[in-house]
């Protein structure tokens, strides 16, 4: 059984530098098991999966933090990436990305360059967004005209004076 099969595909020869030939170090991964309750802050330098309960800050700014399906965290979480499948009551701060999975439930504020909420995820709180590169907006009209509703019906006559309060001219939607 240890004999290499004659049919096995040959691995293409690659130039592997001595440094690459060494086995890659296994990334440290810690788990707080489902029966564990941690009261106090958690810090360190390895990835962490929380399946139990944590009542204290989780500070792993250079590492990934996963709150598993059974995981519950009541405090702020700091990580490089944060993935929530369980529940969190606290603010999430990620250097790179926050993902609230379908089963995730977050009550708190999210701070990260990228935030993903999967369908079904429950979230209440705020998300700070810097704004992506946006297409140049269409030329705005100096005045409001009365747009027709898609019923062709009773669009009330706008009463504003063209200059929107948000600092831009109000423009009616284009008609389909």
């Amino acid at each position, binding site marked *: 059984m240890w004999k290499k099969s004659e049919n096995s595909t040959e691995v293409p020869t690659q130039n592997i530098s001595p440094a690459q030939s060494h086995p890659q170090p296994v990334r440290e991964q810690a788990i707080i098991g489902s029966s564990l309750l941690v009261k106090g802050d958690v810090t360190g330098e390895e990835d962490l999966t929380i399946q139990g309960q944590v009542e204290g800050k989780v500070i792993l700014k250079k590492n990934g933090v996963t709150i598993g399906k059974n995981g519950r965290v009541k405090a702020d979480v700091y990580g490089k990436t944060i993935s929530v499948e369980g529940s969190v009551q606290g603010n999430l701060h990620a250097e790179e990305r926050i993902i609230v999975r379908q089963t995730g439930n977050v009550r708190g504020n999210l701070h990260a360059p990228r935030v993903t*909420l999967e369908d079904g995820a429950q979230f209440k709180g*705020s998300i700070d*967004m810097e704004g992506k590169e946006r297409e140049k907006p269409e030329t705005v009209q100096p005045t409001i005209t009365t747009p027709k509703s*898609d019923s062709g019906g*009773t669009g009330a006559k706008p009463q504003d004076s063209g200059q929107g309060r948000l600092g831009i001219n109000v423009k009616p939607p284009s008609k389909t």
Partner: protein
Amino acid sequence: MRLWFNSKLEKTPEPAKKRVERKLEVHRSLALNILFHQFRESQHYRILDLGRAFGQNVDFFSQFSCKLHIEDLYDSLSSFDYFSPSDGFSYETVYSYLLPFFKNAPFDIILAWDLFNHLDRNEFKHLILHLGQYSKKGTMLFTLISMEKHIPEKPVQFKIVDEEHLLYLTDPGVMKKCPKWEKSDLDHLMPNFRVCNSFLLRNGFKEYLFLYE
């Protein structure tokens, strides 16, 4: 679970109850289109979304520089069993607990979706009073008022498809009587908000864009 907040809205009598199939429909939104054309790249906006959190909506708003607050107020009220106005607490106390914001950082935009169809007169009035504390001159409020006799028991869930279209997700369930807020009701219940635009849609909703003054 105590449903204090819409207790006065009469449910449809038993014989008239009918099940509604889960519906997914895309409708054009004229008011939302106007709202989105207000955005300027150079400005940072504070947006309050009183509806449910959807990744699609968050993705949409991520093209703007903004702070998006998502509160899913209907859910909060539905699962709210700590105290209620019937226990002697004021509406203001309840709303302050559920919607605690900083008064020195008012919102530019409030997305109420169809929430007002699921509130009675008092709940509606006090919510608006509460939101007024976090509004400023020029704050815009977007809402959809149903013109139908009956509406689904729970609010429609809205996903932003693009700047002109909304996906309506209607949960199956029993129907209930719709308050059918008229313009005169809205004027009375929303004294500091002035109608900026309104559109009657074919789907039975009337879209409103209000401006806080």
